[in-house]
């Protein structure tokens, strides 16, 4: 306990944002599921790039451009190894959303035919729902949606039923950004593969928070975002199994992604460059690589267990409040550090706004997951989410903030 808090104090010193006051109070940042904060190591890595070797990659023969290219490719290798992939299996994208769209556009358009089945789940972020919905509409394919249980777990029977339809693609999230639910990615991936489908994993909420290896999981594609894992905005990644990437048509076209273009004829570049059209976000990749180093130095096992501890503590306090509804599983083995809740008779916006007056930053709304909201029949929820720089004091501040909400709205 004490040990943890000292660790967190040490970590916080690496994050300049925590010297900011929020509404005149110490910043209690409980919105890392939306975007994380950046440590000084990442900020400096980006600045160093600007100041020392800023130049375009892959095309320059001068020293500085060679350095930039090297740094960019080193970043790729480093980030790839962090998720258990080979460098050539990691395509840099803007964010998880673009990564998922890439799969839907490139693999999807090339492989899905009329009448085919695409499976996603009720638990998905819009980014892992809409690309499949559009693909299905365009191809006259069927979109099937796996149900979730009242507890907030994927419904096993519903999954089985959908797999029996012989789907082409099954897309599901590793960890839910609303319910916190952590799905058994490895187990599901195996069932998906056995059913003969391509398995697409949304790792946006898992890669930042626990050890994740695509090789171990056995998925075909995985998307993630840098800004949720201490990295810069504007950079994310798509893991794709090499054979699949090889066989796929390109998505965006332009500079960098071709070998030869003549007016009549085009030869695409090798994987992964085939999917990186135009000048990439080099500084973003370098910043994300530094973020990965930071996480590695903490150890992803520590990250997971630290968040588990905070989540357990928060849940134990929140379930005591009869006027507070908490969504998602209560067992911390099955969930990550994302807690969505509502206070009876108070809209989530108002919860967030009142917490802000106490310096506590949480999110409210539908969290880009309206199907989940529909499932629970609520228009919105407040959401607190934890990361490496949070501690029990933050949890206690949250609970006190909720008391204030109840006072203002005279909730019993």
């Amino acid at each position, binding site marked *: 306990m004490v040990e943890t808090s000292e660790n967190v104090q040490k970590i916080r010193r690496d994050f300049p944002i925590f010297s900011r006051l929020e509404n005149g109070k110490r910043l209690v940042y409980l919105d890392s599921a939306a975007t994380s904060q950046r440590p000084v190591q990442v900020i400096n890595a980006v600045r160093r790039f600007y100041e020392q070797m800023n130049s375009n990659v892959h095309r320059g023969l001068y020293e500085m451009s060679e350095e930039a290219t090297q740094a960019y490719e080193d970043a790729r290798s480093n980030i790839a190894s962090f998720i258990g992939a080979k460098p050539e299996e990691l395509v840099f994208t803007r964010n998880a959303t673009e990564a998922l769209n890439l799969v839907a556009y490139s693999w999807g358009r090339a492989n899905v035919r009329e009448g085919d089945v695409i499976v996603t789940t009720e638990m998905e972020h819009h980014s892992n729902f809409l690309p499949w919905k559009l693909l299905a509409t365009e191809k006259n394919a069927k979109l099937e949606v796996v149900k979730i249980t009242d507890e907030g777990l994927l419904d096993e029977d519903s999954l089985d039923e959908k797999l029996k339809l012989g789907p082409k693609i099954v897309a599901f999230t590793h960890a839910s950004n609303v319910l916190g639910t952590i799905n058994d990615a490895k187990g599901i991936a195996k069932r998906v593969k056995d059913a003969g489908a391509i398995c697409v994993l949304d790792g946006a909420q898992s890669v930042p928070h626990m050890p994740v290896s695509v090789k171990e999981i056995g998925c075909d594609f995985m998307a993630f975002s840098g800004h949720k894992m201490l990295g810069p905005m504007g950079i994310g990644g798509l893991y794709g199994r090499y054979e699949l990437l090889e066989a796929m048509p390109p998505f965006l076209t332009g500079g960098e992604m071709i070998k030869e273009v003549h007016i009549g004829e085009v030869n695409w570049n090798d994987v992964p460059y085939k999917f990186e059209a135009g000048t990439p976000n080099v500084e973003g990749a370098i910043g994300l690589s530094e973020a990965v180093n930071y996480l590695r130095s903490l150890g992803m096992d520590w990250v997971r267990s630290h968040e588990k501890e905070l989540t357990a503590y928060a849940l134990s306090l929140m379930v005591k409040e009869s006027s507070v509804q908490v969504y998602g599983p209560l067992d911390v083995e099955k969930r990550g550090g994302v807690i969505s809740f509502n206070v009876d008779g108070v*809209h989530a*916006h*108002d919860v967030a*706004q009142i917490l802000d007056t106490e310096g506590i930053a949480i999110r409210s709304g*539908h969290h880009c997951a309206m199907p989940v909201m529909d499932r629970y029949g609520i*228009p919105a929820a407040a959401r607190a989410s934890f990361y490496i720089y949070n501690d029990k004091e933050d949890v206690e501040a949250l609970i006190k903030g909720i008391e204030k909400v109840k006072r*203002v709205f005279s909730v019993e």
Partner: protein
Amino acid sequence: MSDDLYRELILDHYRHPSNFGHLKAPTGKYRDSNSNCGDVIQMEVRVENGKIEDVMFTGVGCAVCIASASLLTENVKGKNVEKVLEMGEPDVLALLGLKSITPERAKCAMLPLKVLKMSLLQEQKQA
């Protein structure tokens, strides 16, 4: 500023909104939502001779949004359509008794007026 938002006027109208429900014979009707927040408001109006004879709303939203809808519907009853189409953020803030508002919350406060205007425009198109 934020604490201001939760004064009695707003909380009262949130807990007990005026004109909440449906109209018998609306001449115009419109529904819209705020992206990324889940506020949804529907307005139903009955316009006669260029005047708002009656107006009611339904929807879900935060205190600011619901209070804004409640106060707005009270305010515009009997007004000329032209006058209502001219209303803007300052008018809504005045109704709410607020001096200023942050951009995100302004979206909540302004949704009812936006939807009301659209319901009036629809009404006119049909007429």
